[in-house]
């Protein structure tokens, strides 16, 4: 019962974030894609509200949180009903995911349920933080700043522990199994975004099979990495696949904000987004990182106020002498027990497909890969020692995801784009395509 209630808390996230379904660019996605984006919005809403409530004197309780979220859902559904009246034809998509896409996901759920993919970090700090936050009814700074918990990485962003505390609120006892299974939901969400965005089951299949294989090899269940990847997929998916400017901005902002509040590496992703937008002279799109900057800034202000910077303080000077060993260690780990097929397959698909369409996410992949190497060059230890070996498999998942999204972009069916324009923008909004998608007229 505890596990069911704990898992239900994660299943409710799309309902809490359902307001995003009002956006034209989201409404025309297939159902699974809409569900995933609403889930991302719900996760961000839940965590931000839970972080803010104690600040205004409202410590968490099941009653308080349920009331707040029911109010949000009610207002979202009411607004959505009004929006339905304005909905234009052509919004629907398929619900059924092909059996091919389901197989790797099913194997992942098997691996999660039999405790074969669990990450130690769930036991060491992500889970304990969620438990202690729940007990305190707020972000428990006393726990975070206790010297005994120094290795729990006190300045890591709080989004995942807040979601765990939300799950704990519904279940009463913390459900470790629900936390592990949440990884499966993240994988499903990423696959759904690629599938709905590209309208290609083949692209979704490649994404699901690759990430399922990499997740099992990297043992990331219950850690923050699956959620980070999910938010990154939301942000990149918005920039690549959503062609309505308002929806693109909002969904991308949700993805970037979620990423920076989930893991330190989310900041590298946000900076990569800024650089790509600047390189492509998409000045307005740069502002998608503003909500993320505000939220992360608030967290860093708290950490800075107590002088508790750790991971964000950096690791010291760059050690260029480490370069060859960093690259060697990183490449070794990047095989994911699959002979580097997770990297080789999408690269071949990109080469066979439309390279220009893949350029945005390829740049993001290259920048996040470069950031990984850059940070490893600042490491305090020899790169052949424990640090790179123990973390690279997880950290490399971001560039791997973006490479998969590049492949998905390269083989994205173009006829659907044209059809969407007629059906959704035909009634007065025509001509307002996003600058990114609109920058690809030759592709269509």
């Amino acid at each position, binding site marked *: 019962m505890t596990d069911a209630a704990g898992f239900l808390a994660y299943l409710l996230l799309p309902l809490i974030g359902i307001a995003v379904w009002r956006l034209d660019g989201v409404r025309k996605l297939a159902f699974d894609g809409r569900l995933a984006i609403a889930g991302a919005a719900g996760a961000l809403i839940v965590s931000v509200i839970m972080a803010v409530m104690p600040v205004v004197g409202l410590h968490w309780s099941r009653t308080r949180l349920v009331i707040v979220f029911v109010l949000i859902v009610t207002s979202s559904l009411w607004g959505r009903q009004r929006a339905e009246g304005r909905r234009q034809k052509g919004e629907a998509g398929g619900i059924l995911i092909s059996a091919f896409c389901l197989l*790797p996901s099913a194997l992942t759920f098997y691996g999660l349920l039999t405790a074969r993919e669990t990450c130690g970090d769930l*036991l060491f700090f992500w889970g304990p933080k969620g438990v202690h936050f729940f007990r305190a009814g707020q972000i428990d700074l006393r726990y975070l700043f206790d010297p005994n918990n120094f290795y729990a990485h006190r300045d890591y962003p709080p989004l995942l522990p807040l979601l765990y505390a939300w799950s704990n609120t519904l279940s009463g006892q913390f459900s470790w199994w629900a936390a592990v299974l949440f990884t499966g939901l993240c994988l499903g969400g990423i696959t759904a975004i690629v599938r709905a965005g590209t309208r290609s089951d083949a692209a979704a299949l490649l994404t699901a099979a690759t990430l399922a294989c990499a997740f099992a090899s990297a043992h990331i269940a219950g850690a923050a990495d699956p959620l980070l990847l999910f938010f990154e997929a939301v942000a990149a998916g918005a920039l690549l696949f959503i062609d309505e400017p308002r929806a693109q901005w909002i969904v991308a902002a949700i993805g970037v904000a979620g990423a920076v509040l989930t893991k330190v590496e989310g900041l590298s992703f946000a900076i990569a987004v800024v650089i790509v937008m600047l390189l492509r002279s998409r000045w307005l799109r740069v502002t998608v990182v503003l909500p993320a900057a505000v939220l992360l800034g608030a967290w860093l202000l708290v950490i800075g106020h107590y002088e508790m910077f750790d991971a964000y303080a950096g690791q010291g000077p760059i050690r260029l002498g480490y370069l060859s060993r960093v690259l060697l260690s990183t490449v070794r780990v990047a095989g994911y027990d699959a002979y580097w097929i997770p990297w*080789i397959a999408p690269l071949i698909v990109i080469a066979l497909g439309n390279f220009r369409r893949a350029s945005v996410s390829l740049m993001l992949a290259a920048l996040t890969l470069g950031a990984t190497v850059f940070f490893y060059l600042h490491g305090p230890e020899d790169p052949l020692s424990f640090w790179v070996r123990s973390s690279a498999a997880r950290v490399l998942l971001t560039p791997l995801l973006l490479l998969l999204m590049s492949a998905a972009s390269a083989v994205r069916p173009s006829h659907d784009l044209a059809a969407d324009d007629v059906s959704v923008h035909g009634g007065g909004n025509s001509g307002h395509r996003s600058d990114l998608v609109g920058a690809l007229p030759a592709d269509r």
Partner: protein
Amino acid sequence: MGIPSFDLDVSDATTASVKAARIVIYVSSAVMTILLGRQLVRSGGPYFEIPETVYDHVSPGAPPLNRQAIVVSRRIAPLLPRGASVTVIAPELAPNYDVTHYLTASGFLPHQHVVHPTLAVGEQWPDYVIALGRPLDHPGYRLVREYPEGRLYQRE
């Protein structure tokens, strides 16, 4: 807009490259799914039981000590007074104890104060010690409970 399909439309690509991309996707996905299955099998049986903890099958062979820390922490949680200080160690690792053992317990003993192992002379000893693996040989502690996964000691 329609139901997603397996069609690949690579606009300026040739028919041959479309077919090739499709083959690459199907073959690589099949291979990676098989390799995923191999990874799952490698971590050992039993294969069709829900394990006792979320950390049971992360590696083949003997259960990791972190898994034992979970089991013992759950069993002794009702026995420990609220606010008591407790640490978790594997005595064979002394004096370089693995911090992940007590970090693990911090999620399963939320009513107690789980602390870094400080068992040397002159240090502030915790009220309780959970020893994983070998028994604890320490003049300041007496054995309270014993389980297959570990032992509970109380400060004398």
